[in-house]
């Protein structure tokens, strides 16, 4: 077994994801099956291979950098337009620190 229910709960916690007990059981089985399959990666020799950090094509290293110029932002009204709760130009969230 590659992953236990306890590890599933731990990972869900890292991901800020609330799971039901039924989901924990289901994901334990699903992730286990997938991780067993993914283990095949160990078979392939990569000892002299660099990781592919980005998709490369022939261009100079700086070719895709744009000049660092100021441009107008969204503005707070537009930025807040989709917020579930806002006020006084801010996003509103439940209490973080007790007064």
């Amino acid at each position: 077994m590659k992953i236990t229910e306890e590890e599933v709960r731990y990972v869900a916690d890292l991901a800020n994801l609330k799971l039901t007990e039924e989901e924990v059981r289901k994901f334990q089985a699903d992730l286990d099956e997938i991780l067993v399959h993914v283990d095949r990666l160990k078979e392939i020799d990569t000892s002299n291979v660099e990781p592919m950090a980005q998709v490369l094509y022939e261009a100079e290293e700086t070719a895709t950098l744009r000049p660092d110029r100021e441009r107008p932002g969204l503005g707070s009204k537009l930025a807040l337009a989709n917020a579930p709760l806002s006020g006084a130009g801010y996003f509103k969230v439940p209490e973080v620190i007790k007064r």
Partner: protein
Amino acid sequence: MDIGSLTIDQVRDGLRARKFSSVELATASLQFAREENPKTSAYLTFAEDRALEAAGRVDEKLARGEDPGPLAGVPVAVKDVIVTKGLRTTCGSKLLASYIPPYDATAVERLEAAGGIIVGKTNCDEFAMGSSTENSAFGPVRNPHAPDRVPGGSSGGSAAAVAQGTAVVALGSDTGGSIRQPASFCGVVGVTPTYGRVSRYGLTAFASSLDHIGPFGRCVRDAALLLQVIAGRDPLDSTSAEAPVPDYLAHLDGDVKGLKLGLPREYLRDLTSETGDLIAQAVDSLKKLGCEVRDISLPATDYAIDCYYVIATAEASSNLARYDGVRYTFRSSSSATLSDMYRNTRGEGFGAECKRRIMLGTYVLSSGYYDAYYLKAQKVRSLIARDFTNAFAEVDAIVAPVSPFPAFKIGEKIDDPLAMYLSDIYTITGDLAGVPCMSVPCGKTAEGLPVGMQILAKHFEETRMFRLADAFERAGGAHG
């Protein structure tokens, strides 16, 4: 005018000859799309006001004798992971059911500047995660060729819209096959351009190193023209390429004599017999056109699925962190603390497949597992890219099946995530290597289900890929 089979050329000629106005065509297209939609659920939102306004501008330009642009009056459908200013963009998710973006994606801006008319936003798997469009929070899309079957995914709505004729062309997105696989299942042309060819600005991020925007069309020419319009450098996406965009249409001359094509043996192992037969016939038809087809090997293919599901989920777990109930419309109603609000919002908002991928991605990036999974997968990704570099030293293009099987039944694979992932087995390699690739219709099974042939080319060699696809299409596909 048969609205369901219009091409871009026919729209241009019709407007020029005053057979119809752009507003008339937009009105008729919207009505047709609304009538057809119950059969497939291809659209989530119709863009009536926006379409008529855009069409009005095209008509004004025509009246003044100005050039209305290469896409003038053409009805276009846009996948709902691509943002449209002021027009609801859901990403197929409950989390964004009422999200109204404050800006347009660059691809959207460019296609509208070229005179294109956006008729609506198309259904898709939630955040483009899936291979069947069954993961949409708004219900599945049905395949126009067989209503009990999936249209493929994740761009199933865009593929179905073009196949049923409610849009002339459409935009989709491809991270592991999400354009080519639905194009193949729905019998249309679907193109995944070179990574960086089209700006990703305004494409909701799933796996940033793998995400592409690309076109669908009912013929190669239309898909190539839509790519022409949206391609090119965009300062708002630093991964977009400076390379000049060639005139794709100028190269559709049918001349493919002497072209060297590779047929990778790793892509022929697990095909259904009908898909295998159609690909074999397609190869014969390419030989008749004067192409030289040779057997090649892409040995790292066997590890592509595993490599992909590590890298894509790792990137997704990070990209989807932003849906936390603060900025994007949906928030769980009862949470006493900030941390509970994050957890409850995400737990209630995401569907099962997104949760599964967030979990897998978080796991492979978590402390102690990074080297074994993520770093290893990035190295294997280099090997997969190297396979293509080696192959393209010997051949001009690669031909292969798109999917091992034609469209499957709705519900058939939804409870078996691994089986669903394996349906992308021949498409994910192109995304991992960042090479241009496409699906072109090659024929139908006895049951009438479309099968697509895949063409892959070297980075930025879309021109060669289109020329081959167009010649194949003109020759009548596999039956030529």
